């Protein structure tokens, strides 16, 4: 088992290397120049632009830049942000916690709602409630996440005025609040973005959970358990659910990239100061170090998530535990 994990780790490192290389070359193929003179202000100077390029080492040939870039990445240094004039790592330090908070909250909403609904549906297969919930989860699954966010803004932020619709905190009062006050402020700001991301995901999770559980319920050992005269509730929760858990763990690993993709859009909608919003801002300012860094960090998050799912899977599934 340990050997299998080591093997996965080694694969992960390889994957990260490919990601780093690919993003570097993708970015450097770009025809645009990150340093462009302002054509609208009074002070226009091509020499200054040339000097800035030299300062950031962009006048070097691509292969030299590539080697230097790999060296930097290996030491955890992503260079200096062109648009924010500070190390990319400092930029990430500001935004990554926000994205992780949003992602965890969204995953909780996603899996708790999704699994509950899915289990509930599979115990009442074919009933009216089942088809109603199926319809709702299909709608959620098919709704663009950013549009759902905008609709929530319209409803709770504009019409009802219940919740804030932008940012992670209220910068005006936050720092004069007591600790519980600050926590409450954060929660209030988190509700809408996390609900957007979580509920859209829950649509898919519920559908997945429902079919996974139905599949397990049709298996032999469940029939045996039923035949033994166990209560239906015990059959579902103890026997079937535990088995369908395996596929849910796999789903968790698979849904991480989708979650981060969704986060890019949701963060843009809610001005959430996280990775996603950073990436979209960096694209418009052609902040290459931030773009490459962000791609690598999000890949790292995904790889780490997959690794976790993999290990969880191995612990949860007795077959892999003994066979390996």
């Amino acid at each position, binding site marked *: 088992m340990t050997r299998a994990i080591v093997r996965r780790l080694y694969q992960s490192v390889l994957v990260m290397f490919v990601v780093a290389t690919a993003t570097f070359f993708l970015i450097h193929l770009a025809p645009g*120049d990150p340093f462009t003179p302002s*054509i609208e*202000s009074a002070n226009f100077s091509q020499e*200054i632009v040339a000097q800035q390029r030299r300062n950031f080492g962009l006048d070097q040939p691509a292969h030299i830049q590539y080697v230097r870039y790999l060296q930097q990445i290996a030491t955890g240094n992503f260079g*200096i942000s062109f648009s924010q004039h500070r190390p990319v790592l400092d930029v990430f330090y500001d935004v990554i916690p926000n994205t992780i908070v949003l992602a965890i909250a969204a995953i909780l909403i996603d899996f708790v709602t999704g699994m509950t609904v899915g289990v509930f549906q599979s115990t009442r297969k074919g009933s009216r409630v089942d088809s109603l919930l199926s319809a709702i989860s299909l709608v959620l699954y098919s709704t663009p996440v950013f549009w759902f966010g905008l609709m929530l803004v319209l409803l709770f932020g504009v019409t009802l005025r219940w919740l804030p619709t932008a940012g992670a905190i209220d910068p*005006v009062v936050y720092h*004069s*609040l007591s*600790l519980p*006050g600050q926590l409450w402020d954060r929660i209030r700001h988190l509700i809408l973005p996390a609900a957007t991301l979580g509920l859209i995901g829950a649509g898919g999770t519920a559908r997945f959970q429902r079919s996974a559980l139905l599949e397990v319920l049709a298996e032999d050992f469940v029939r045996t358990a039923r035949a033994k005269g166990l209560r239906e509730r015990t059959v579902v929760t103890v026997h079937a659910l535990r088995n369908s858990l395996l596929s849910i763990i796999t789903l968790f690993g698979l849904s991480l990239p989708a979650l981060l993709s969704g986060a890019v859009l949701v963060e843009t909608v809610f001005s959430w100061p996280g990775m996603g919003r950073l990436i979209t801002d960096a694209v418009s300012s052609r902040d290459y170090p931030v773009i490459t860094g962000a791609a690598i960090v999000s890949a790292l998050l995904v790889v780490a998530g997959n690794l976790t799912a993999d290990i969880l899977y191995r612990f949860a599934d007795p077959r892999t535990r003994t066979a390996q």
Partner: protein
Amino acid sequence: MTKGLLTTVLCAFVAASCSTKADCRGDFCGTIVIAIGGEPETLFPPASQTTAADAVADLIFLKLADIGPGMNSVGDEGFLPRLAESWEWEDSVTLVFNLNQLARWHDGAPVRAEDVEFTFAVYTDTLVASPKASVLERISSVTPRNNGQVEFKFRLPYPEQFYDATHYMRILPRHVLDTIPRVSLTSHPITRAPVGSGPYRLVRWRASEAIELVADSNFFLGRPGLARVIFRVTRDTESALAQVLAGEADVLEQLVTGVNVDRISTAPHLRTIEYPSSSYLYLQFNMRNPEDPEAPHPLFRNRMIRRALAMAVDQQELIDAVLGGLGDRTIGPVSKMLSIWNDQIPSLSYDTTRALELLNGLGWTDTDGDGYLDRSGRRLEFELVIPASSRSRRQAAVVIQDQLRRVGVNMVVAELELNTLISRVTSGRFDVFFGSRTQDPSPSTIREAWSSSGIGGANFGGYSSSEFDRLINSAIESQQADSAMTLWHRAVAHINADAPAVWLYSPNTVAAVHRRIEGVTIRPDQWTATLWTWRIPESRMIARDRRGAP
């Protein structure tokens, strides 16, 4: 049981969120929240490139002297003492500043002459690559005479020496920055935790959320009127407007359209303040062939075509449709803020009949009856490049397209990403460019944009007229204010007649400000310049004013 616990916890949250720390009492307690559309990229003045960065930095850093409300940039008339208490001219190229002995850095150290010397060295260092380095070229040296006196030497005498010496440099603390290598100065963490000598100091900067400043109550030029200034980063004008309307923010510096101004006027807690704009918009003709920069442009080399097109554009209709009437038609490359602004200067006025006559006279007629003019089988058409990111220019382009269609000219609008646009415009690959230019208080920047000395630089269209060059050079060199003004007006009249561009409009800048704030003045070139003198009387304070500085 569980329910009861939950309620208790919730109550604790609510109570906590309402509780305040040490209440602030008195006239200097106010807190204002300013909604800004873009986040400053740095608070290190030599590196700043955006107006947002300068707006915040100018509350933290001081210059030696500040331009006066009259916007005079010639000589030292009207300039207000800042870090320099006084100054004297020893000869035509030697200027000595006497520093205010009371001036202190935010860390308590006194401001010395060597700080000024250091600042000049940083701004002009190629490793720092400051965008402002080029405007300091005519200063040959800055040397301290003693702790309180610093001497500026110029390469040659000229009218705007004082303006150049004071307007661009925000004085930096040598004792804080000296140990940092120059090449990493612009990206050092200190640039986001600046130590200045201005009325406000930085408390915290939450990336892409807010920048919070607190007043330095011992500020040597007088206690700042507001205790806290919070710049709140918003994603666009619309959400900034929503915050101001909801009372979550107190100030929005630019409302852009007439519709927005109307919405603000309906809110009882807000008032609007109009101030002259520092920018103007124009359609710039390319004099050179976009395919071959050596050759002249097939259409626009002809002065008469340019004049005809300029006469075919109805600026007033444009201002009404795009800005809701919130702008002035410009005469020449002059924004309303400049002292040389004058709407009596001769210019081409809107006259479609005359425009059509001119075009017909050049052989452009509608022979095939398709509504467009043509000549020897070619339709009179060209491409206008505009930045896709500018909503107002996208709207204006459509209106202009329609206006030109009425005289039979086909203008194709190409909306480009900003970076593509910049590379095409700076390399001369365009027919007509829909530009916007923000000006400094000095009219001398017109030279780099429109005279032949700016070709290869900011004169993207390549317009070149020796008469215009002569007039503008003598206007800039003129020591007499009156004759300078006459020369400026003659230069503008000359460029108007040549029509290297269609001058469109200078949008009015209207700010929304909460009514409880008093003493609101706005200097057109830098709207935060006098913000430290704004105040909120105790009687009108609201909850967030009393909360005070944490």
